[in-house]
């Protein structure tokens, strides 16, 4: 007699699964990786390999010997963290920095909470911020992408546009003077290549990844767009109030980790809210905090801190912001 399966409905399943989603995120990051290899060559490849090996190894070891669970390194989530970590670090940083970052990101920020899906904070960001606070010099020594970012920045070689502008503003220069003296800060330059971490150098590459994620329905646009809009509006208000003192909103959007953070880190499933409305609140919080930190804080870049702070608010948002229920019309 033939044995039949019997189970409750539904009897079929959709296309999506965790591995495919995570793999899609990695694919979306490839243009940025390619650009960073193009500009930084061997040092970028070296950092990528170190990041991959150390992230996967840390996850495998913890899963096997501490949590004693099934091997999870094939779900691509550790790969996502590794690539993000690589894109978040200066390409010329020593390799052992990456190993420490991986141990903190995977070991502390992810596995301590029980692995994928359980962590409160974005692992790659925790890794980055840990390194930034522990090794401030290494983490802010940037290499100039070769041949693209003209000679005009020779004097400030090693500073990102954000840090450079912030420093200049502190020294009393007005925004207009800084931009006139540095054509390398023009929008067209910012779109293609600029000084920064491996993942910050090309806005176009990151935007291609964003379009891919949307097209594959991996993420919805709510978080990213609400970050951009809130940054644009808030920075715009400051800029209109005093254009000599505050940089324009487009500069804010194209510089630093804004695109990498808003497209790939803030949209991390695990650490972002569950409802569209909650995601918009989350995104606006990140946008406003980022501009606040960049403009008034001690660091030139603030999106990492902004995302981590808002990560901590997510459980609260999930508790109070409910989806639009059916039957309320």
């Amino acid at each position, binding site marked *: 007699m*033939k044995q*039949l*399966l*019997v*189970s*409750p*409905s*539904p*009897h*079929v*399943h*959709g296309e*999506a*699964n*965790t591995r*495919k*989603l995570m793999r899609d995120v990695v694919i979306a990051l490839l243009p940025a990786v390619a650009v960073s290899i193009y500009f930084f060559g061997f040092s970028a490849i070296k950092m990528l390999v170190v990041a991959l090996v150390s992230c996967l190894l840390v996850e495998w070891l913890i899963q096997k010997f501490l949590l004693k669970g099934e091997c999870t390194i094939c*779900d691509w*989530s550790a790969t996502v963290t590794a690539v993000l970590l690589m894109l978040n670090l200066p390409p010329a940083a020593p390799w052992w920095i990456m190993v420490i970052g991986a141990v903190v990101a995977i070991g502390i920020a992810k596995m301590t909470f*029980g*692995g*994928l*899906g*359980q962590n409160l904070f974005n692992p790659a960001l925790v890794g980055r911020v840990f390194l930034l606070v522990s090794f401030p010099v290494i983490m802010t020594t940037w290499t100039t992408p070769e041949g693209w970012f003209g000679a005009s920045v020779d004097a400030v070689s090693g500073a990102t546009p954000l840090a450079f502008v912030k420093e200049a503003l502190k020294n009393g220069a007005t925004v207009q003077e800084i931009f006139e003296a540095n054509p390398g800060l023009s929008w067209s330059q910012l779109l293609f290549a600029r000084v920064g971490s491996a993942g910050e150098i090309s806005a176009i590459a990151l935007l291609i990844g964003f379009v891919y994620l949307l097209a594959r329905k991996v993420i*919805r646009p709510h978080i990213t767009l609400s970050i951009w809009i809130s940054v644009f509006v808030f920075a715009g208000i400051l800029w209109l109030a005093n254009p000599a003192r505050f940089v324009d909103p487009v500069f804010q959007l194209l510089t630093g980790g804004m695109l990498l953070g808003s497209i790939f880190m803030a949209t991390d*499933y*695990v650490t*972002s*809210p*569950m*409802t*569209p409305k909650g995601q918009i609140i989350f995104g606006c919080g990140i946008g406003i905090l980022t501009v606040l930190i960049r403009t008034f804080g001690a660091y030139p870049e603030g999106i990492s801190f902004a995302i981590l702070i808002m990560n901590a608010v997510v459980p609260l948002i999930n508790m109070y912001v*409910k*989806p*639009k*229920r*059916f*039957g*309320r*019309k």
Partner: protein
Amino acid sequence: MKTFSIGGVHPADNKISADAAIEQFPVPEVAYISMSQHLGAPAEPIVAAGDKVKVGQLIANPAGFISAPVHSSVSGTVKGIETIKDLAGNFCKAVVIEVEGDEWVETIDRSAEVVSEIKLEPKAIVDKIKEMGIVGLGGATFPTGVKLSPPPGKKAEFLIINGAECEPYLTSDYRLLVECPEQVLIGAAIMMKALGVTKGFVGVEENKPKAIEILKGFHSKYPQIEIVTLKKKYPQGGEKQLIDAVVGRQVPSMGLPIDTGAVVQNVGTAFAVYEAVQKNKPLFEGIMTVTGQCAAQQKNYRHRVGTPLSKIMEVSGGIPENAAKIISGGPMMGKAINNIDAPTLKGTSSILYLTEEQTKRKPESNCIRCAKCVAACPMGLEPFLLNKLAKAKRWDDAEANKIYDCIECGCCSFTCPAYIPLLDNIRLGKATVMKIMKSRPKK
């Protein structure tokens, strides 16, 4: 193009039996006519072993207000009243009839002529529908006569005929719309008369262009019935979703469709109403699809109620070697068949064969909080949360998060990338919460 406003998923269509015309399935040698073919109390048999019955003869009376009579689908001798197992493996009472010939009661009009003139008055129509044992054929098998009698204080404004057939694979409603469009429209007109409404809609999904074209061709003859083309999205055929899609009104939480002024009836039901009122034919036949990529043949059958499923499987080419699960109904909300010898019922809509690769559940992994279940839920619930609350038996919190609004459409489980059986847990939680809510003293 219209559709419902919240959530939904897009399972592969797989309407591979769409071009198979409806065939009459042979009368079985023995018919097992279940007394539990409708929502509500099982019918009470009025025949005994040894009685001779004809096709269409009343063999069981309704047992209560929400119940329906049952008529014989065959002619022959009653062997007895037995306890049998239905397709899900539950026990039910059935009248077993040894078939001899095929002799119909004389009052049934068996001519092919389409009768469009509606002679009966509203009250008489409802009585006729109740007398003929018509039940909703969209899945829930709720007695149609009851649905056509709105409770005091509630007034119907329009009738919506559900031709969405949003479940993958199923094609029985489609075949009816293509082969008997006018009968379906007359059935709708009859129910509109019974309800005293002047506006009717037939909602059909865009993936059935032929049916839409044919129905629109009848516009001049039935101008009061509007054909609404709907965007393809599951669960469009859910009663609440269909009302939202067609007229843009939402049934309130814990409310009834009639609260929006809508009465929804399935295409199959409209056809059955036509046959009952215009042709005096009780509901003892149904239209069902036999399908699946692995099925030997793609079929749409008109079957006599009480025909063993195994007989239908045998005639249509046998159970495929690689079929791992057989489903009665669609793949999203249908029931897995546990007993292939169970008889067909009024509401049996399909035999669907799925292979292990198509249907076997994959091992569940951690929730990655992707919120795809929240986006997919057509009721605006948070399946991930309800799943967690139900597993933790936190019934108060589950109630506060409206677990009782769940329509069990399966979008959440379908979409979950971690293969978490969300609906399994939510279904259990919902049942428990509903029980608790019912046990509370009424204010």
